[in-house]
């Protein structure tokens, strides 16, 4: 009799617990970027809905999705991925389609479909930020002031090691721009064999001075340690190292490459409904503006722009640090996702062969 009661009580409490303890697993890029999302999205979401957020990091959250979905063992509910990865994963049927109707309208009533900037809403993905790959330098270790992307490749004028992301994407574009290709011609030239040769030839000129990085948190570290004097980096990481930690790091906007980060929900996500709720919440006008006060990435909604104020230290204006600020767009390239969806395999193969030589 007693045993029965105990069993019943256990069953009841565990059922209640299962119903109550809803949680969503969100995978992002780590470091100061994940922190900005925790502050701007996760905490308010948990406060509002009671749904717990389990935040995990990866060098690139797109990579575990295929393995998990194909193995039928999905543990990620929401992942933050780059544009070309979002399109590729969606094409391969690895993502849940996004219902645009679930996204809230802007405060002034503009529907979400018009409020998001062009390209931010995809079949299986909703963008949250506009970020960019830039190059940055440590003013303690560089004599003079690098101002153009060409300076990054000029080791006679600015001697010292360079940090570069170990991937063909963005690296080849930067090499071409440094070689004098105007940003609107980059992808046209990179589409030809001669263009690819030209990009690699430019990279060859600094190959012996390159330290390769893979995780977004590495470049600020390499720069601060003096391990490199300049490095390509995600612009927000440099901003945070410079403003929050007071490191003498400076961003050079010339030759920056703009890209989206988008939220996706893998097929078979264990908490799909809560995940969708999270995506809708995190990409509303206020939340996107809030994130921009933690890291210098531009919000993907037009209506968020006006709400972006100061950095969380209360004194740094965010606007001039955004990749989308007019002053920073002088020589900027918008990542061509379709080019990379198509050419990713070939160019990375060539890149790997080039690295190994």
């Amino acid at each position, binding site marked *: 009799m007693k045993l029965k009661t105990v069993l019943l009580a256990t069953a009841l409490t565990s059922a209640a617990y299962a119903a109550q303890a809803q949680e969503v697993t969100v995978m992002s890029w780590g470091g100061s970027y994940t922190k900005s999302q925790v502050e701007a999205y996760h905490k308010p979401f948990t406060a509002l809905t009671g749904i717990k957020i389990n935040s995990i990091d990866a060098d*690139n959250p797109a*990579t*575990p999705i*295929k*393995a998990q*979905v194909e193995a039928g063992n999905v543990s990620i509910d929401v992942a933050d991925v780059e544009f070309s990865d979002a399109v*590729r994963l*969606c*094409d*391969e*049927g*690895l993502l849940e389609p996004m219902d645009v109707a679930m996204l809230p309208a802007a405060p002034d009533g503009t529907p979400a479909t018009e409020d998001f900037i062009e390209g931010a809403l995809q079949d299986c993905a909703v963008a949250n930020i506009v970020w960019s790959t830039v190059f940055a330098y440590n003013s303690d270790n560089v004599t003079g002031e690098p101002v153009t992307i060409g300076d990054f490749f000029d080791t006679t004028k600015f001697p010292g*090691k360079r940090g570069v992301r170990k991937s063909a994407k963005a690296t080849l574009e930067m090499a071409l721009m440094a070689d004098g290709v105007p940003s609107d011609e980059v992808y046209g030239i990179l589409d030809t064999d001669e263009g690819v*040769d030209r990009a*690699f030839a430019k990279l060859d000129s600094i*190959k012996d001075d*390159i*330290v*390769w990085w893979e995780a977004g948190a590495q470049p600020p570290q390499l720069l601060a*340690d*003096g*391990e490199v004097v300049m490095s390509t980096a995600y612009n927000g990481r440099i901003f945070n190292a410079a403003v929050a930690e007071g490191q003498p790091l400076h961003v050079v906007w010339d030759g920056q490459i703009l890209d989206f980060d988008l939220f996706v929900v893998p*097929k*078979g996500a264990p908490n799909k409904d809560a995940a969708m709720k999270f995506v809708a919440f995190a990409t509303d006008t206020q939340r996107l503006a809030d994130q921009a006060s933690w890291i210098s990435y531009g919000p993907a909604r037009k209506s968020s722009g006006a709400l972006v104020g100061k950095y969380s230290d209360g004194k740094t204006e965010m606007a001039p640090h955004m990749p989308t600020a007019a002053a920073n767009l002088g020589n900027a390239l918008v990542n061509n996702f*379709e080019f990379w*969806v*198509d*050419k*990713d*395999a*070939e160019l*990375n*193969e*060539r890149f*790997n*062969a*080039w*690295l*190994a*030589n």
Partner: protein
Amino acid sequence: MSDAMANGQQMLTTADGKPLKQALARAQSHAKRRAFLLVLPLLAFILITFVAPIGQMLKRSVHNDGFTMHTDIGSGVETPIMVNLKGWFKANPAGTSPDEPAYAALAADLVELKRLRAPGQAGTRINYELSGSRSLFTKAARKADKLEPPYKQALLDLDEDWGDPALWRVMRDASSAYTSNFYLAAMDRTRDLDGKVIMVNENRQVYVKLFKRTLFLSLLITFLTFVLAYPIAHLLAVLPLRHSNLLMILVLLPFWTSLLVRTTSWMVLLQSQGVVNDTLVGMGILGDENRLQMMYNQLGTVIAMTHILLPFMVLPLYSVMRPINPSYVRAARSLGATSWTAFRRVYFPQTVPGIGAGALLVFILAVGYYITPALVGGADGQLISNLIAFHMQKSLNWSLAAALAALLLGGILILYWLYDRLVGIDNLKLG
């Protein structure tokens, strides 16, 4: 004698009159069955967690159904795709230039792809062998419903690449799920228009080179661990237990420390602003301008891996050296051998089984090493396992990853076989 016994009138029997042979067999089979039942859990465990997944993964190296079968991820329902095109390929031999029925079949298949939301999957499969063809499929499928005869013209209007003979050659290959093309790719080879095997363009050759480098670095690391471990193991073996135990802990301590911690410690030591360089600059041996580059290159990989794999050499060596009776060497010396001859002719041969075991262990671990070269290898210190990881995690071309892994596995098995022929696997001693 035994024959006489068997042919004798009276067979040996047990107390209850059964033939001894039968009784023995029964008792033995009973014991065998029990032994089998005892190892059954382990056998099942190995089959389920080791043999089956590896077999499944290796199957991908020759089997890729991206262009033949669509599996709905939610329901698991399988639908064959590209069936019309496959029919045309069957009816027409290789080399036939695609005619209107071929394009009509393609158009019908594209409509089906769109319905299944599978153009990305089919395009990805073709893109593995012909870069840039992925968007052909996704773009054409988007407009598939609106295509009208003549289909050849309609598709060529969409994108003239649809007329590319290389594309049709790849589609023909891919229309069968079984293919050897991934093995060709893993050996830097591809097929030309007629299906003949040729090398890929020089600037894309990477795998053969990395296989060679992996082999070379693994042998180098094995040799270095041997050179370093032999004196240590000898010292451990000859010291009194009290001292040798302390030294043993020093050998084992790094062994118990996390691999990542050890690798990052090497980074702290060896990087250009690291401890070693700072010390050398501080002592005035090096100028601040020409700090040594010991990290993010092959040197870093060799140093870190040699250190990490050292215990795998020390332990087997120690275990064969410990029981060697010191009076053998003393006897040799007293019979007039120089210390070098005594070592060479008497001591060393007795340690060979330990060297064999240690070398095999270190070599096999080094060949498949992944995390250390990834962290400290930079560009030229990468091993083949890093490219396997690249294709598993980043490019998502699992078939190529599987082909590379199968080649690595095959290569190691051949080396193991050679080792067995030359040294003999019975000579191996782990303890």
